[in-house]
């Protein structure tokens, strides 16, 4: 009798290929992929259209014919006639009115003729306020008023600084951010400990937050398909056929790798579509930089390198592998699709714990990036696979920590693979799930 045994690697390859091919053929995958692809393609393009440079349809001169200004700035003197030095506003007429006439002026705007604008400039307790009033029937260029107010605001700031007699360096100092550092000095004068503010910018934190959410969603999608695939094969009794030709490890590993490849492939495809759409959006908007790039914090752009991207992808794969085997473990405990709801909690709870720890840390990072809690999140396998990709992109995790995290995650995956295979073999033909059994296996 000729041997019909494939090597374990070939078994995994065959199951993986079958999983990918058949998943691609399912309508649910095709529809979800089409939706994501449309979002990735049309999203940047629509943004490009929205953010198209105003210069495209900007007129040569403002369409505001008369600007009425009512001012109550106390001791601050401002000359808004400076506006007329700008060619854009050269044909505009400026008329100052008393503050007491402002209310009356609002009513008269309609009567006075077309394209009138009334602006009220006030000094409140803690800020200055510029309010504009325009008649409904006006037909200005859409950004005319907005641009005028920006210009008036700049003139107001300049006037204040001028009246304070500030030099250029004083003006610069006034606008500079203040950083704080705390040094602890020993009795002999040596610095014992240096504690400095290490928090990341809020935009970086939000980026990590968003990145974790995306990984969480991808993981949940891949995990649920793995768990349901494992159970449906048992439920449909296909498993009995497979087991005469292939080892349980081949079936499980092939299935998980197939789902991971499919998910990663989907991410890469969507990414590629987004890049193409970004190029198109760039042309539409006439902006110099990338549309997607403009949405990313500067820190991410400066930290992007091939090494970082590879490490980030590696961690996403580790995440999908870890949670994929956890989902397979949950699937192994059930023998019917209906029983999956009883067992999939193991996967969901673990993923939520890991994901939420990472999300909390992402917010916490604005306060500091050296705390013990953050180190725990970096090293705890359930959360590190969520946290480290974002932290790598903002450059706030050192490579020793990344190395340690990889070691811990790999150990967890190996333990999980052994437990999952054992559980899978034990429950191949189980017909019911008992809570006692769940607890027993959870403890193993």
């Amino acid at each position, binding site marked *: *009798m*000729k*041997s*019909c*045994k*494939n090597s374990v690697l070939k*078994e995994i390859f*065959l199951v993986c290929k*079958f999983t990918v*091919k*058949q998943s691609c*053929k*399912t309508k649910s995958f095709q529809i979800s992929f089409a939706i994501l692809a449309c979002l990735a393609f049309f999203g940047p393009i629509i943004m490009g259209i929205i953010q198209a440079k105003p210069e495209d349809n900007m007129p040569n001169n403002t369409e505001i014919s008369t600007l009425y200004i009512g001012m109550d700035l106390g001791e601050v003197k401002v000359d808004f006639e400076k506006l007329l030095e700008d060619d854009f506003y050269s044909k505009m007429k400026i008329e100052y009115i008393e503050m007491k006439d402002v209310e009356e002026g609002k009513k008269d705007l309609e009567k006075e003729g077309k394209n009138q604008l009334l602006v009220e400039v006030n000094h409140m307790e803690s800020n200055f306020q510029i309010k504009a009033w325009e008649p409904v029937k006006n037909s200005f260029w859409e950004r005319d008023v907005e641009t005028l107010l920006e210009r008036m605001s700049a003139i107001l700031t300049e006037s204040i600084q001028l009246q304070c007699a500030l030099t250029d360096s004083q003006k610069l100092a006034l606008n500079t951010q203040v950083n704080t550092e705390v040094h602890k000095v020993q009795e002999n004068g040596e610095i014992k400990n240096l504690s400095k503010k290490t928090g990341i910018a809020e935009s970086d934190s939000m980026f990590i937050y968003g990145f974790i959410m995306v990984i969480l969603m991808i993981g949940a999608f891949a995990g649920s398909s793995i768990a349901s695939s494992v159970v449906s094969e048992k439920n*449909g*009794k*296909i*498993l*009995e*056929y*497979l*087991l*005469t*030709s*292939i*080892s349980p490890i081949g079936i499980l590993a092939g299935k998980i790798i197939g789902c991971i490849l499919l998910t990663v492939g989907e991410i890469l495809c969507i990414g590629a579509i987004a890049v193409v759409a970004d190029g198109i959006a760039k042309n539409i908007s006439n902006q110099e930089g990338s549309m997607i790039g403009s949405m990313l914090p500067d820190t991410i752009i400066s930290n992007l390198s091939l090494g970082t991207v590879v490490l980030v992808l590696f961690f996403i794969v580790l995440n999908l592998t870890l949670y994929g085997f956890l989902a397979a473990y949950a699937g192994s405990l059930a023998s019917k699709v209906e029983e999956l709801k009883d067992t999939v909690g193991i996967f969901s709870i673990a993923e939520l714990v890991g994901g939420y720890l990472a999300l909390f840390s992402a917010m916490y990072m604005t306060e500091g990036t050296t705390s013990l809690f953050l180190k725990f999140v970096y090293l705890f396998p359930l959360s590190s696979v969520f946290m480290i990709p974002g932290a790598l992109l903002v450059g706030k995790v050192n490579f020793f920590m990344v190395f340690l995290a990889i070691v811990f995650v790999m150990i967890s995956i190996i333990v999980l693979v052994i437990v999952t295979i054992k559980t899978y*073999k034990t429950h*191949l*033909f189980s017909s019911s799930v008992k809570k006692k059994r769940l607890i027993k296996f959870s403890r193993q």
Partner: protein
Amino acid sequence: MSLEVKNLTKKYGEKTVVNNLSFSIKEPGVYALLGTNGAGKTTTIRMILGMVEKDEGEVLWQGKTLNSVESNVGYLAEERGLYPKVDLMDQLLYFAKLKNVPKSTAKEKIQYWAKRLEVEEYLYAKKKGKTYSYKADQLSKGNQQKIQLMSALISEPRLLILDEPLSGLDPVNTDLFKGIIREEIKKDKFLIMSSHQMATIEEFCSDITIMNRGNAVLQGNLNDIKKSYGRVNLYIKSDNDIENDIQKMGLMVKNHTPDGYHIKVQGQEQAMEFLKVLMEKQTPIVKFELREPSLHEIFVEKVGDTNEEL
């Protein structure tokens, strides 16, 4: 070449589902595993295939421990299983690949078996000039069974395990399956068959094991078993009423139908003595048949009439 099952035992907690079961198949042919539902047949088959871990015992094929993944074993499970939403051709090619059958060979085999099992229309359906195959859930139960038999035979296994191969088939497809089983026997293959259909077992099997609650209650060559019981079944039909004669002889009537009496006799001598009595009385005899017990009768005797399906 032989298959040897030695002292197989399987327990689930306190319950012993297979208890110290041993049998061997030395010559090509069909070996039957019989038993009521829950007797342990499927568990035995799963242990032979290595799907279920044995608590004790071993299974040897050609003198070595059988590993269904490494050896070429064909299996038709009792509970049918195909991917419901996957094209039949894709499934068959996938199962063939898992059995290390080259794609070109697999395609030839599929074509052969599709024709032989009369499922070509599902595997090579045409639409707008393109060939496609149906999905499993578009097929009837019987046709799904044919596809599964194809997947069991696609790698040309020497050892074939068929768990209830004929259950749920209509008479036409039953004959088709029987024809294929006969062909496989002619190819010098080793078959293990589990079935509730005693007539089928008698038709194909030379050796049997009857299981009851995990224990082998009767084992051996079917003919030898029958011979050991002797010719104790007398089927007799007469134009006259012979009931009084039966009672006078002290014989036990097992069944009385329009086709005559089924009488339990102690042996050939008692039957001949009864025939002599009837002849002397010049009773017209339409049928006189002295037979060994059927497998059905042996089974019911050994296991008890606990299964309505039998």
